[in-house]
């Protein structure tokens, strides 16, 4: 008999029954020791479903109908006390945000032992022992000392380990993990996923994994439940769903997911036009100085040299803190390099300022990650797109209007949208507007900083298609900054892998992705979840120790193939 058996679960906001529910007659069952992935895009109601199991729905969330059988008992019928005895003890939960999921003013130890004391009435000493054991089990060394530390002294990955330790300490029957790795870098994600898998296996705990990432699903799940607009559109064996998705939506979803086997955009450097952007040995440091700050300045970008040619996409890949965004801003001259040069179509703009800089900048535009913040909330869409043209002054005001309409249509929107305000648009639409704005001054290159990572996969795909289409239309160049190798494969001609402010590997997308040389590149690729259960493979833990080479002395460039270099 299933451990959890959810049937006809219906959840809505507020008492008003007439409002459409956010979860609508969902049935899910989870077997003992089974890993079930609950997949869906934002707003699909997957998280609400999960939260309702342990009765932790937000403020106004109400269960309108259904049963949640757990070990044969209907949790929905439980009172607060009853639920409390289940929470933590029988059902654990892990949340998306490791940075905020732990109480900043309590030591990790205090937070670890709480549950033990409450549920098992262990003594302080005993519970501490258990806590230490759990920490070590989750791969945190010096556990004893670590207990006395505060969350802010842990990295994101570490905190997620602590969460796991905390929740697994009581050997629950079910662990609910809500997007447990979404906020983490791929390499860390890989480690956490491995850890999760191991733990549930060893402790024979069932895992309900809520995620939007098909890659993660493929990596982890035994069975998959696909949700959309509060309803289950499909569920079944992981392999079979990936192999032969039944539901229309599932198919679209899978189609949209870029995989690491798609062909890369192979084109040789020769086929590109003139050089539009050149960064020569640019460096930029932050912090340091200041009356009381003693710590050394952080080298965000450290002597990077690269160039982008008309019509090509150079993908800048790296994990958070690798300095890739700073590099993008340097190219835009939103930051000024400490040393090195920035050349846009052959002109040095490093030392330009004021009017001169403004004129040059038009050749290089930018698209940002957060679609909600990238448009001035007080500007109508039309005004936003018109701004660059008006500033450029080349376009007579009379025709600006038509141009805006045209641009909107090029970006896949209707000219009518010019009248709209940003808050009336969806994320994807905003990103399209951002693109339209970037195109307004027909730049030669666009710096795109994680333009799709805030979007759902289906939307992501559309935006990428649009960008490619635009590029091919009038040999536009992209400096495409991302952490997602799958996206890279989809759009990049060449790839530069960045780590700790340096480029560690640079070459044609095919070369770098298929024949990675640098250990870090290897690790990245190895870590990237492959949206194909068939090719699930055990991975080695942790990061290869390339520290010596990467961190210490610069190291040398070595050509390892045609247009393919690594730092060694």
């Amino acid at each position, binding site marked *: 008999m299933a451990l959890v058996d959810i049937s006809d679960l219906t959840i809505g906001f507020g008492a008003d029954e007439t409002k459409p529910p956010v979860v609508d007659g969902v049935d899910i069952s989870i077997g003992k020791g089974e890993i079930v992935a609950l997949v869906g895009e934002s707003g699909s109601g997957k998280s609400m479903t999960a939260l309702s199991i*342990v009765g*932790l729905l937000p*403020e106004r969330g109400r269960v309108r109908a259904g049963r949640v059988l757990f070990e044969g008992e209907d949790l929905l019928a439980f009172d*607060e006390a009853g*639920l*409390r*005895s*289940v*929470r*933590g*003890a029988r059902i*654990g*939960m892990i*949340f998306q*945000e490791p940075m*905020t*999921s*732990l*109480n*900043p*003013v*309590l*030591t990790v130890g205090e937070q670890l032992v*709480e*549950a033990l004391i*409450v*549920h098992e009435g262990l003594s302080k000493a005993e519970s501490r022992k258990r806590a230490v054991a759990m920490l070590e089990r989750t791969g945190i060394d010096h556990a004893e000392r670590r207990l006395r*530390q*505060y969350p*802010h*002294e842990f990295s994101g990955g570490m905190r997620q380990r602590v*969460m796991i330790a*905390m*929740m697994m300490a009581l050997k629950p029957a079910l662990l609910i993990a809500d997007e447990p790795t979404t906020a983490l870098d791929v390499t860390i994600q890989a480690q956490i996923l491995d850890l999760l898998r191991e733990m549930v296996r060893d402790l024979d705990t069932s895992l309900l994994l809520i995620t939007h990432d098909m890659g993660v699903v493929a990596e982890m799940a035994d069975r998959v439940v696909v949700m959309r607009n509060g309803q289950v559109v499909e569920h079944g064996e992981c392999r079979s769903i990936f192999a032969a998705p039944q539901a229309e939506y599932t198919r679209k979803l899978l189609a949209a997911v870029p995989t690491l086997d798609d062909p890369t955009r192979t084109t040789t450097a020769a086929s590109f036009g003139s050089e539009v952007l050149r960064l020569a040995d640019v460096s930029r440091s932050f912090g340091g100085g200041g*009356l*009381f*700050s*003693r710590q050394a300045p952080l080298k965000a970008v450290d002597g990077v040299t690269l160039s982008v040619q008309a019509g090509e996409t150079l993908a800048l890949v790296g994990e958070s803190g690798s300095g890739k965004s700073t590099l993008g801003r340097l190219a835009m001259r939103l930051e000024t390099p400490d040393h090195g040069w920035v050349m846009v179509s052959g002109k040095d703009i490093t030392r330009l300022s004021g009017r001169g800089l403004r004129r040059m900048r038009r050749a290089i535009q930018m698209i940002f990650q957060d679609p909600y913040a990238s448009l001035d909330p007080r500007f109508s869409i039309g005004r936003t797109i018109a701004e660059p043209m008006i500033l450029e002054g080349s376009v007579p005001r009379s025709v600006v209007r038509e141009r805006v309409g045209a641009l909107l249509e090029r970006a896949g929107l209707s000219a009518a949208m010019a009248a709209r305000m940003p808050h009336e648009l969806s994320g994807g639409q905003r990103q399209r507007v951002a693109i339209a704005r970037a195109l307004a001054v027909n730049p030669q290159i666009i710096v795109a900083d994680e333009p799709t990572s805030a979007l759902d996969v289906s939307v992501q795909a559309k935006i990428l298609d649009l960008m490619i289409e635009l590029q091919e239309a009038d040999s536009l160049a992209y400096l495409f900054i991302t952490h997602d190798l799958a996206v890279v494969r989809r759009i990049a001609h060449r790839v530069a892998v960045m780590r700790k402010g340096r480029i560690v590997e640079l070459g044609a997308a095919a070369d770098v992705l298929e024949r990675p040389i640098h250990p870090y590149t290897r690790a990245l690729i190895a870590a990237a979840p492959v949206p194909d259960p068939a090719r699930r493979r055990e991975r080695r833990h942790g990061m290869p120790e390339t520290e010596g080479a990467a961190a210490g002395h610069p190291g040398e460039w070595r050509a390892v193939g045609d247009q393919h270099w690594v730092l060694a």
Partner: protein
Amino acid sequence: MLRFLGQRAAMGLLTIFVTTIAVTLLIHLVPGDPVEIMYAQSQGTTPEQLEAMRSKLGLDQPIPVQYVQYIGRLLEGDLGVTIRGQQPVAQLLMQRLPNTLALAALAMLIATLIGVPLGFLAAYKRGTVLDGLLMVTAIAGISIPHFWLGLLLLFWLAVDLGLLPVAGSGPLNIVLPALTLGLSNAAIVARMTRSAMIDVMSQDFIRTAHAKGLSKGKVLRRHVLRAGLVPVVTVMGLQFTFMMGGAIVVENIFAWNGIGRLALEAIFQRDYPVIQGFILVFATTVVVVMLALDAVYALLDPRIRRS
């Protein structure tokens, strides 16, 4: 943490430094000649005497020189003498500072004892009728001018009912002013506490705590309260400055013999040495107290303590 406190201390010193400059300039912005005012009541003073006093106060010197002299005297604890009666200013201020501090402190205690629990309760019961009621009361409380409240209390409790002494410096006399000040600030504290607590309650780690199966009470005590304390302390800091400001008014209603009353008399009497001294002492006090609160703050928040 030391670094954090170091920065705050530096800020404080800067503030005091600026104050001393402002204070020296103050007397020059005054319409009319302070020395004239000084001798206004004395008949038949000769210009020579005025000159003598001028050079005695160093007013005949260029301003930078005056400033240096002022600092010099300051370091000796000399804030000059009052124009009326030529009493030593430093002594007057020091006599009364404790009274003002006592008033502010007691008022703050009252405000805290009333405001924090109510604010916490409102946050906990947020969205309920009780919450609404509390918050309406709070906003009304903020809107009542404290000098009015003070008078009402004075006339009602002291004059009509004769429950409390009406004026003087007996131990009972602090009750009314402290009550006035405390009550009108309790409302602010309650509001600030509420929003601080609500911030905390909406944090992920509270959800985590619930997910662990902790009881509501335990979550509130161990997690919400501990984490909420940090912002509340910051609120307290602001409160204290309000209190010091309010004290100036309230002292004058209840004839509480603090620096506020001294200052007001001085302003009416155009007794500039007193005004100067007052501003300096007041600013310094605020700086010191804020510094102390920063220390508490740092201790409460590991993110600062451990840096």
